[in-house]
């Protein structure tokens, strides 16, 4: 079966025969698929909305950008930031920084092998001042607790931005696996930073996001949590579901919500020097 026949068959299948399309895909084997077909061909599988190769690479670059942002943040606060609570706190940040460095290298490699170009990191301004260094988070460089608040928000946002790319990446096993394996590790970082805040006296903070609360006094940070308090999942109202003790707090904590790339770009805009 040649490529054109496959593509024609796929197009004729329509959107209601998912399994047959999957069968075609599987009969080729995903590795062969990756090697021999352009990304655009792969994009016809599984999701109804076609993703071009450049859109897939754009999604990967978005994930890369947020790893670069996190990397810049941890580098800055470790080198020029506030006094840490103790050596363990620094060690935790050292570990996250080193792992983000490896995520950056890994994602760049995946993008390159996928036929794309990994975007170089922009110049970040972690104060949120577009390069002025005097933005609304400038105190993060002198105040340990405020620094942790920003760290928490960066980690929670990273999860949401990654999650927003996932269904677009479904068409490509390699890309999906690359982001998903980093995705759950991002959940680990967010949890850790939140535990560090709890240990530093922020008594209402938990390792998971309750409602759409940032548990900070910073109105910018708080605004970034909009959309996290979802109590209806897959059309099912979770509150009190099946007579279980499911309430607003534990229901909203139980699910991390995706963020649209447009909103993610708006937020990141103030952290990048134009």
């Amino acid at each position, binding site marked *: 079966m040649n490529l054109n026949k496959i593509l024609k068959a796929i197009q004729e299948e329509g*959107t*209601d025969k*998912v*399994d047959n399309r*999957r069968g075609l895909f*599987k009969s080729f084997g*995903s590795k062969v698929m990756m090697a021999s077909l352009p990304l655009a061909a792969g994009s016809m599988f*599984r*999701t*109804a*909305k076609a993703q071009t190769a450049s859109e897939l690479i754009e999604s990967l670059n978005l994930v890369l950008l947020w790893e670069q942002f996190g990397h810049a943040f941890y580098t800055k606060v470790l080198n020029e930031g506030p006094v840490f609570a103790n050596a*363990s706190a620094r*060690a*935790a940040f050292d*570990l996250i920084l080193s*792992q983000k460095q*490896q*995520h950056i290298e*890994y994602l760049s490699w995946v993008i390159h092998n996928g036929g794309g170009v990994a975007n170089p990191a922009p110049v970040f301004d972690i104060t949120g001042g577009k390069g002025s260094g005097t933005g609304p988070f400038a105190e993060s460089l002198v105040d340990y607790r405020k620094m942790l608040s920003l760290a928490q928000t960066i980690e929670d946002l990273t*999860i949401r931005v990654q*999650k927003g790319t*996932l*269904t677009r990446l*479904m068409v490509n096993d390699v890309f*999906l*696996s*690359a982001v*998903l*394996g*980093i*995705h*759950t*590790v*991002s*959940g*680990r*970082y*967010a*949890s*850790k930073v*939140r*535990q560090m805040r709890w240990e530093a006296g922020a008594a209402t903070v*938990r*390792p*998971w996001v309750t409602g759409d609360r940032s548990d900070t006094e910073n109105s910018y940070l708080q605004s970034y949590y909009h959309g996290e308090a979802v109590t209806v*999942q*897959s059309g*099912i109202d*979770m509150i009190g*579901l*099946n007579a*279980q*003790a*499911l309430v607003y707090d*534990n229901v909203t*904590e*139980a*699910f*991390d919500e*995706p963020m649209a790339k447009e909103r993610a770009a708006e937020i990141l805009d103030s952290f990048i020097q134009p």
Partner: protein
Amino acid sequence: MKEDLKETPAIAQKDVSRRQFLSYAGLAGAGLVIASCNNDDDDQPEPDGTVDLGSEDFGLLNYMFALKQLSAAFYTRFTTPFYPDAPTAETEFVPDIRDHEIAHRELLRNMLGDRAIIDFEFVLQNSIDFNNRPAVLAAAKDIEQKMISGFLGIANRFASAQYFEQIAKMTTVDGRHIAYISDVISYNSFALDVNTDRKDSPMTPEEVIAALSNYFPNTISAKRLPK
């Protein structure tokens, strides 16, 4: 997302025919398999009492449902009562984890409807000494890791983007759980159990089911899951 959702009714519709067949046979849903009820790609009939996860996306959801049944039952037993002298950090946060796992379990139950597998009758105290803090925490970490790796191992098998995304919303919360549990066991180990690319690693359903088989009262068959 609007486009993605279009796939869901198609899957649901396809499953109706299978469900109708099963209901004619008196076997609505993907419950206990009767030895004589074999399917195309099985060489051997399943022994009595085997729970067949089923096929297509509903099979994948049943697989996640089985894992969430285990974790919810585990954390329920974990917290009622806690091991002696449990530190505040644990009595503060582990009940949250329990509730998250119950939320995940109940959502999957309702997403599956009458296609859901049975409710397992776990007897976890036979496998775990719930008075032994290190043993309980080690089991918690192990179950969290299996849920994470288990989802990573099937993420590319979903036909429906909506179902896939729904489970993905849970998996980072499991990532939050495992970091917390890991740090309780050994401080600052929140992200040490990752691979050389600093990613969580996938496991196949067969690997996960085998690794957790001592916890489940029934044999679980993943044979008909999409590959």
